[in-house]
């Protein structure tokens, strides 16, 4: 789609956006708001660009965990006739990089005890952080696979892997060591994030997941299209201004 997409470059887009921005009354230098503002100005740039790289080495996961993550990604979003798979789009890299964020240590959640088991509708009540979920979850699934099939998850056939994941999803395969939220609340959710998130986070290489579903990414300007129930003609744009 990029070959016939000459109409809206990111530069044009930025210019349009700036032109639309009104000349709001400027902030006054003498206001008390200003002094605290100066100190707190966040970096105006988006997060660093870490697009998927072919020779990526994980900085968080161990080799055994990394093998599991790659194998699980390949089954949760396989490469097939519908489009690219999670592994080729860099989703394992996305997950590894997320382990370096405050979220991975439970930094945006209330993590004070006491902790009690509760009905599901009361939400997450585990004391485990995302990092701990992955550490325990992978170990428990590999142990279940060893016990039943004498191999870790990554060494199973695709059909065996699908079967294991389906049973875990349904809850028919359980282990006291496997945190119940791990599969749906962490692994599957993070795989989807990496697959569909901006490529700067390490997944969705070349915006291929966006192209598969017809999502234009961060074009974020549909004034002339919104009233028409028609196919949108342009390919996606990423936060770093690349076009797909």
């Amino acid at each position, binding site marked *: 789609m990029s070959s016939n997409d000459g109409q809206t470059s990111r530069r044009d887009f930025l210019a349009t956006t700036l032109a*639309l*921005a009104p000349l709001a*009354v400027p*902030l006054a230098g003498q206001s008390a708001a200003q002094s605290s503002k100066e100190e707190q100005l966040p970096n*105006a740039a988006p997060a660093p660009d870490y697009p998927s790289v072919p020779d990526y080495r994980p900085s968080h996961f161990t080799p055994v965990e990394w093998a599991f993550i790659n194998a699980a990604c390949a089954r949760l979003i396989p490469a097939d006739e519908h489009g690219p798979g999670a592994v080729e789009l860099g989703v394992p890299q996305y997950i590894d990089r997320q382990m370096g964020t405050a979220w991975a240590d439970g930094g945006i959640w209330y993590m004070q005890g006491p902790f009690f088991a509760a009905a599901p509708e009361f939400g997450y009540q585990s004391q485990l952080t995302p990092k701990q979920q992955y550490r325990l979850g992978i170990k428990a699934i590999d142990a279940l696979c060893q016990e039943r099939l004498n191999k870790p998850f990554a060494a199973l056939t695709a059909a065996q892997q699908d079967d294991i994941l389906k049973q875990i999803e349904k809850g028919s395969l359980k282990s006291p060591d496997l945190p119940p939220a791990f599969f749906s609340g962490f692994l599957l959710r993070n795989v989807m994030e990496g697959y*569909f998130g901006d490529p700067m986070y390490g997944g969705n290489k070349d915006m291929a997941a966006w192209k598969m579903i017809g999502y234009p990414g961060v074009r974020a*300007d*549909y004034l002339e299209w919104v009233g028409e*129930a028609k196919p949108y003609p342009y390919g996606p744009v990423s*936060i770093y201004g690349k076009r797909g």
Partner: protein
Amino acid sequence: MPTNKPVDVVIVGFGWTGAIMAIELAQAGLNVLALERGEDASTVPNWAYPKVVDEISQSARNGLLQNLSKSTVTIRHHKDDRALPYRQIGSFKPGTGVGGAGIHWSGVHSRVMPQELRLRSHITERYGARFIAEGMSLQDWGISYEELEPHFDRFEHVCGTSGKAGNIQGRTLEGGNPFEAPRSHEFPLPPLTDPPTSALFAKATRELGYHPYPLPAANASRPYTNPYGCQLGPCNFCGFCSDYGCINYSKASPQTTILPLLYRMPNFALRTQAHVLRVNTDSTGKVATGVTYVDAQGHEIDQPAAMVVLAAFHLHNVRLMLSSGIGQPYDPDTGKGTVGRNFCYQLLNSVNLFFNQNVYINQFMGAGGVGQAIEDFYADNFDHAKLGFIGGGVIWGRQTGNGPVRGIPLPPGSPAWGSGWKAAVKENFLHTGRIESQLSNMAYRSCYLDLDPTYRDGYGTPLLRMTLNWQDNDLRMSEFFGEKLSQIGKAMGATAQSGRVLKRGDNWDTRPYQSTHINGGTAMGADPKTSVVNKYLQSWDVPNLFVLGANVFAHGIGYNPTGLVGALAYWSAANIRATYLKSPGALVRR
């Protein structure tokens, strides 16, 4: 403890209501200080394109929301249960920082139906007092729509709200909402362009005999300059509205509509990273002397003030009343006490509609407030005599903008992963719309707020405890709306539907997002035995304390609350200016 120089007014929290009260009182010549627990933020750099249009940082990681590690609430369904912390963002999304929830809201900008403000009287007159179920704490709000009308009008003109009037001074107008209460003026801007979902919704509901109208949206449809001289640019339907700050100066927020002027006033000051712990009172307990807050370094500081305004989000306003010991806490066993009483929520039924491959919805386009709605089943616009419930709500076909990280809805029976899932997302993404019903939630004796005995926040203060579950009246209503949604979805041409309709037997599930429209807990009213503030939002117990926000609602209305919250803040400010400042004291005698 260090003590700051006294000010005329200290405002706790600096979102919509804090900004409104600050500018109105600063314009009256008072020395105003706003304390905000979060950080300062403005369109540039915080929400500049492309930084903010990032689904990972904003939607998946709650970029603009309250960091629950610092403070949250606990939740239980019943007073005999143990409450558990709301550890992750789910059912509701409190904001933080300058602008508050006014940054990441959608922009749906409704008023209130006059009968909702006197619902107990209205129901009693029409159906008899016995129609009100046992256990329902239904009460009038002590204020009329007519008193508030100029302030609704004012807030709409501050926001540059896009819409079409259906009733100007009693004259019915074509193209607007025929159920609308009389307005003094037309909306400041014409309606936004209808996206595909809304166009299909309008056509289908009209054919079904209902009365669709363009939902009022605080997303500007044209360039606009508001009464404060602040300018808005036209919305470009970028699809990043709810969860996001506006890249385009199109969505009304304190930053786009009030702060540019307020920040130029020398008698206004803002202190960020100032977390207020309590309102202080003198030895009589009847006069507020100021507040105590914790600064960024963890120091506790006293801020004396002649007048205190609570303008934080619902949760924090109610908790401050409880932790400051102002007013009598509500006791569900005796029914006595008022602080924490009338805690309500809102019921949201959400139905995804799946269309054929030739029907392009393009759900990635949209704006938070754009849509078509019907009010044929709002409040008491329809006869409830044979229905067995009180209340109602809006049904709408909005197109708010959605991207794949926020979740791709799929038809029933679709797999959650694997090749089958891929086929389904590929087939459906461009051809999926959504319709919803947003419903009132009555007040009940069993639903209330108090302080949690176990869990504390990072400052050592007990968390606010919510005791709330869906009740029979509201679930019956929800089932009624479920049928309407299904009928409208079919008429729109959907080939499949999925989603959530609350039914009898369902408990409040805190996991999926449903609505940030929590309300009540410091109800307004005419009777100090059943309300915390009088009609001017002035504390019955401490007359130099004013309490703003949706926490003053006496029950959960069907509309989005921001329009009413803003109008009430303007109404309170106008009365403070006209009456209170001349003679500080109780504006209503007990």
